[in-house]
Every structure is written in C-alpha cells, then in structure tokens.
C-alpha cells in the first residue's frame, strides 16, 4: 500500500505487449526496502519483458495496470528519470558503444543524476576518485575503465562492468537480468560478491534468473515463478531449490 513507508516497488495487474503480442498478462508484485526477490521461470515466460517494461524500453507497450516506485507513478516517467529516481537494470546483453570512453560515459551519467537531484556536477578529481573507489569495490580492472563502453569486453567483463555502473549510480532498486548467463563459476562468484557488497538495508534487488546457481551466492528473501506472463507461485528461498530439483513442469498445471 502507498501508505507503507518502506515500500519500494508495487506492481498491480501489469499487462504489456511487444509488436501487438501480449507478453505480460497481469503481474502483481510488491518489493519492500532491503528485500531481495528472485524471479524465476522457464524461457519465454516474460522475465526479460518485465525488466524491460520497468525501465521503460520503448519497444514495449503497457496496456493495463500500474507500477508505483517509491511512491511515484513509474510508468509516467521517461527512462532517464526512472534511472535518476534510483532504478537500475543490469542488462542481459550489455551493448557496446565504440568511441565512448567509460570515463566520459560514467561522468555524464553521474552528473545528469546529480543535476536531477539539484546537486553540482563533480569536479574531474572528485569523479576520478569515485571511479577508483567503486572499481576497487567490484574488482574492475583499470584497463577496462579506460576502454570504450563494453567494446571488446568478454562476457564476464561486461557483467562485471554492469555491477560497476550499479556501484557508481547507487540505485534504490537494482534489477539483475540473467546476470549469470554466460558466466563461468569464478566470474559468477565475483559478480555476486559485488552485488552483495552493494546491498544494504535501504536498497532492494530483483534477481531474474533461469537457474538456481546464482541464488547460492545472492540469497533471496522471496522467490517468484513467472509462467506465461503471470506469477504462478511465490514462496521463500526453499522454492528455488525445489525448482532446481523438480524443474518447472509441475507448476504448469
């Protein structure tokens, strides 16, 4: 409810489509401050659609329902304002932007967020100091920080770079979309450790994943199963283990 002060995200009866095809068919989901939620489900169930709709990807159309983020109507906001309000998506496939250095990219992002909050831009020195701190926190190689955004990064480097950006922007709610895909076990552990370091009682995380293995490192408070555009089951962390064992078929009725 909106009178609940520690409510982070409240999704009600959300329907969304892409190219005229309905993918989300009535999602209800509530996330409170400090909570970690996992959204699991078979391929094609609408997991990535949900994360894309939340961050305002223009290819998707919301046809019904509402989303409240920290008490504000999320669906009315431009994608950049959703970011400024504290919503972050770690992309499943981070895009490469040749010619744009990580430094320039992050400086623009950080300063636009500061401008939105009515703060002065950081000086070059302050900014570089912040970069160094956050890089150390998530273990991002300084070489990567000097390259163009994601250009020529390996799969693991791209995911680590996503977590680095999350550290820089200090979001209230982070959505990790299949962050484990394409990672070997060492890379997975490093990325998960980064996420855990950034998690505080004030911010929340939604982990979207196909497999349980990421949840060995990032421990959810609540686990949801998404199937055919609806959340068909919600339970505690034990649900993830059960899914690992039994698969998804038993939930498909």
């Amino acid at each position, binding site marked *: 409810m909106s009178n609940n002060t520690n409510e982070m995200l409240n999704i009600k009866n959300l329907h969304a489509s892409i190219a005229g095809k309905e993918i989300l068919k009535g999602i209800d989901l509530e996330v409170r401050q400090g909570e970690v939620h996992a959204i699991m489900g078979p391929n094609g169930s609408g997991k990535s659609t949900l994360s894309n709709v939340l*961050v*305002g*990807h*223009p290819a998707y159309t919301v046809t019904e329902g509402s989303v409240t983020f920290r008490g504000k109507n999320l669906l009315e906001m*431009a*994608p*950049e304002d*959703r*970011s*400024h309000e504290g919503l*972050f*998506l770690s*992309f499943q496939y*981070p*895009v490469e*932007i*040749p*010619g*744009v*250095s990580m430094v*320039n*990219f*992050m400086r*623009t*992002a950080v300063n*636009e*967020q500061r401008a*939105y909050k009515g703060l002065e831009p950081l000086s070059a020195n302050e900014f570089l100091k912040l970069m160094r701190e956050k890089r150390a926190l998530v273990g991002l190689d300084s070489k990567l920080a000097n390259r*163009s*955004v994601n250009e020529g990064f390996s799969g693991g480097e791209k995911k680590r770079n996503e977590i680095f*950006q999350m550290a820089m*922007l200090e979001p209230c709610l982070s959505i990790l979309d299949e962050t484990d895909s394409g990672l070997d076990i060492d890379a997975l552990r490093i990325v998960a450790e980064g996420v855990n370091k950034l998690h505080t009682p004030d911010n929340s995380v939604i982990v979207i994943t196909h497999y349980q293995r990421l949840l060995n490192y990032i421990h959810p408070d609540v686990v949801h199963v998404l199937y055919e555009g609806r959340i068909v089951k919600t339970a505690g962390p034990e649900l993830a283990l059960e899914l690992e064992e039994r698969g998804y078929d038993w939930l498909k009725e």
Partner: protein
Amino acid sequence: MSESNAFAKQLAEEKYKYGFTTDVDTDVFQRGLNEEVVRQISSRKGEPEWLLDFRLRAYRHWTTQTCPRWAHLKLPEIDYQAISYYAEPMSRKKGPQSLDEIDPEVMKTFDKLGIPLEERLALSGNTAVDAVMDSVSVKTTFKERLAEKGIIFCSISEAVREYPDLVRQYLGSVVSYRDNFFAALNSAVFSDGSFVYIPEGVRCPMELSTYFRINAAGTGQFERTLIVADKDSYVSYLEGCTAPMRDENQLHAAIVEIIVLDRAEVKYSTVQNWYPGDENGQGGVFNFVTKRGHCRGVNSKLSWTQVETGSAITWKYPSCVLSGENSVGEFYSVAVTNNYQQADTGTKMIHLGRNTRSTIISKGISAGHSSNAYRGLVRVGEKAEGARNYSQCDSLLLGDKCGAHTFPYMDIHNETAIVEHEASTSKISEEQIFYCNQRGIKTEDAIGLIVNGYAKEVLNKLPMEFAVEAQKLLSVSLEGSVG
C-alpha cells in the same frame, strides 16, 4: 501563425542560435552581375589596374562556364542575376580605424557571436580576429602586436593597398580563376577576406582567425583568403562562419589559397556553421568553396581540419599540392548533415615531389533526410618516388532516411607509391541510446557522447577552445534526429 507553429519556430531558432539579423545601414549594390558591377566593386575598393584586369579576365571566363553537376548533390538552378554582389554594413572611412568608428550594432553582433572585437576581451588573450560582415572586414585585432614580429594580418583589401607586391605575387597562384566555375565567380567579384604573411623563421605567437558573418538579405558572400608562410615559419589559422535564418537561399563562394615554403607549417581549422535551412529544407546557405594549399618547399606541411555542420549545400574539397620534397598534407574532417542538408566534401592530395606523405581522415555523420558524400582524390605523379597516403573514410548513420556515400579516386603514376584506403559505415542503434537512457543520460546527450566519440580523432586536431565549441555544435546540429 498558429500557436504550435510559433512554438516550432521558437524551437528551431533555439537550435540555430546564430540566426538573428543585425539592423544596420547597409550599402547594397543593385542585384545582378555584369562587367560594370565588377568594375564598380573594384573602384569602390580603390583597386589598382592589375587587380581590375584579373577580375575582368575571371568574369569573362566565368561567362563561358556552367555550374558543375558531377557532385552527389541535388542542385537547384541558381539565378546569378538575382543576387547582389556587394553589401557594406556601414559607411566607413578608408585606412586605419579605431573601434569608435565601428557601428555599435556591428560591435554587438560580434559580441553576441562570442567574437569580441576589443582586444582586452579576446578569448584567452591569444587569438587575433579579422571580423568580416557581408562584403567588408570590419576590424582586425592585435595587428600591432603581430607587426612587431613582422607578421602581416589584415583584410585582403588592405593588403592590396599596403602590400600590393606580395598580393600580386601570390593571388591566384594556387587556385587559378580557370580552376572551376565558382573559383571564376569568386575571382571576379571577391569582396573581402583575410591576408596573412608570416616572415621567414617566425613562429606566429597567437592563433589567427577570421570570422565570417553574412547579414544582409539577397546578397552573396565571396571572400578570399590568402596565407603565405615563408621559410621556417609556423601559423595556426582558424575560420568560423554563421549567417541569419532566412527563407531564401544565400550563396557563399569563397577561395582560400595557402602557400607553404621550405620547412614551414600551416594548420588551417574551420568550423563551418552557416545557416543550414529549417527542418523542411527551406532556406540555408549554398556553400561552394575552393580551398587549396601548395606545399612548395622541402619538408613543408599543411594540415586542414574542418568541422562542417552548417549550410544547406556544401561543396568543398580542401586540398594539398605536395611538390616540395618530403612535404606533408593532412585532411581531418567531420561533416554533419541533418534534415534536408546535402554535403559533397572531401579532399585532393596531389603528390608531385619525392617522399611526400598525406593522411586523410574523414568522418561523415548523416541524420534526417540528408545526404552526405565523401569525395577524395589521391594522385601520385611520375616523379613522386616513395609517396605515401593513408585514407580512412567512416560514415555514421542516424535513422534510416539519410544517405552516406564514399567516392574515393586514386590516380597513381609511380609504382613506388604506397596508398591505403579504409572505409566503414556504422549506425547508432536504438539499443545504444536506450542503454544510455537507462543510466540516466538523456537521448540528446547520448547522441552527443556517441557522435563526439566517433569524431574524436578529428576534434583532437582542433585548437582547444575550438574543440569545445565544435563538440557542442555537433550535439546541437543533431538535435531531434533520433526518436
């Protein structure tokens, strides 16, 4: 005008912030062109007989020529009799003048353009400016300080009066009036422009610049710049251009000639921001320019850097003739076209001397319904043993209604030459823009970041202050081109 139209117009004006006009008494010639007009221009400027002869020969040659049609441009018919060939924004006295004699409206205009004519206000105190409005140079700053080193920096009209031998020796020696249709036209009717002479062994202590401003309606601007770098000298020269927003097209046909002697170096940078027309392709400047430098001396070097964002039509190929042994030519270009703009631009590198080297880096950016072509020629003459050229031509597309074209020509007559050409075409994807949006970066800023990243190699060649302006200009020129 409906309210929404008014709003759209206001927005358009914000995008082209140089689109204002100056209310100043202007002495404008009757429209039309004939021998009498050429004579009038010459007599108005009090020119010697040899220069009138030069103009008349050029005019007679021009009447035998037709407008070139080989460029990848849709060229409307231009009615040369509908243009006025001379516009002088104030009555002014001959000879040296103080700031007090300049019309305050003209002073204000240049202030508004960020080009203060008072030396104490100059950008970082290290740029001398020749300010040209319509057909005349209104003020050249720092002349005295430069004169202490023997450097001549003045309007070409003044140079004709004060240094006739130098002008006569070099004028038309790189770009003959027979070179092309627009060169013939310019040679017949050129009004003002800048003259630079750097004496032997002198390194020019400040950036020299010319700021061209078209103000009067129904006129063309035909300026002429002549730069001579004597042995062992160095100069960095900047050129900027703007014009008011008008619904009619305005013609700009300029010539720049550069002579580089033994071991001298000239860097010539342009930020061209003539009014590009509105979002429907109405109005804008037709920019037909012949720029060429001649590296006559051994180990001489000429470097062209251009950022072309303005004009409805751009037809421009700053070139280097490399006849001195070991001479070097460079061409770095960013050309942006948006809405209905058309550009056909590039360079010619003519290798005549031994071990001459040239580099071409061209970055085209097209958006809207625009058309952007790179056209370049690398010629290696029979005697150019060991000549080398490297060319890189990249195109970046925004949206799917614009066009990018590359026309590289090679004409190699010496088998020891090494000529390389690379080309690429890329697109700004919606996924790249959205990725930036998700990180809190607005679409316009995202395009700015990506475009400036793409053009970095060229922008880095510009003098510092120019580079900052050019970066902003790239973003502004592409506003509204995505989404």
